[in-house]
């Protein structure tokens, strides 16, 4: 079933505050074959916050995660994520198109810290593969 067009422009509630620990950053770095030596988290780390927001969005719209593939991802950083941050992501649906039975969903998530300051803006294009695709 195609995704509801009325979603465009909708902003979802901010995700629950997510405390970033050294252990979480270490696990993330280790998964890509490196050893964490302290300091800022890697550049793609904010995707963890974006996933919090995307998972909540997909659940709210009853979209199956296994039908989603990632089309595009961009990050614009105000500052790197560091352990000790308590971060929240707020997702807005920016665009929605249907191409060949697939929904192309453009989302932007703003990641903010405990003081409300912007840490980074992440834009994701999600491809929702239709059953016949």
């Amino acid at each position: 079933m195609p995704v509801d067009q009325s979603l465009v422009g909708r902003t979802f509630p901010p995700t629950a505050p997510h405390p970033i620990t050294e252990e979480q950053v270490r696990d993330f770095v280790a998964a890509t074959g490196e050893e964490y030596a302290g300091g800022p988290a890697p550049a793609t780390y904010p995707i963890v916050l974006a996933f919090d927001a995307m998972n909540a969005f997909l659940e709210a719209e009853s979209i199956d995660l296994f039908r989603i593939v990632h089309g595009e991802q961009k990050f614009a950083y105000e500052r790197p994520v560091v352990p000790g941050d308590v971060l929240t992501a707020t997702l807005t649906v920016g665009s929605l198109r249907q191409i060949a039975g697939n929904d192309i969903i453009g989302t932007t998530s703003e990641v903010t810290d405990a003081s409300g300051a912007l840490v980074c803006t992440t834009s994701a294009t999600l491809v929702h593969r239709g059953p016949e695709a």
Partner: protein
Amino acid sequence: MLETQTYTITRADLVRYAAASGDHNPIHQDEAVATSVGLPGVIAHGMYTMALAARAVSTWFPGAEVVSFGCKFTNPVVVPAEGGVEVEVAGEAKEADGLTTVALTVTCGGQKVLGMPKAVLRA
């Protein structure tokens, strides 16, 4: 001249990445689910491949602040059940106005897997 970096991705890496990133999409772990949605097999998280591209950038420019980073996911990286698959990350850097722009080329088996991957750094 930036030295091309080669990384190997295994299914075990994907399981660890799923736990660490919170992306538990089964297309990255379960062959049956992946093929049911028309994929050629278990594929790496696009974000996993993007993380490897970031790893290359941080190897080339240790400690540099990343201002922006983006790419398209144009071809899936299929990860076999046994052994692993190699991904190569090459880059070319240009400087302007105090910023370094790194244009990346990320390939698997000679085929580009990321579209227009680009990182902008403040050195």
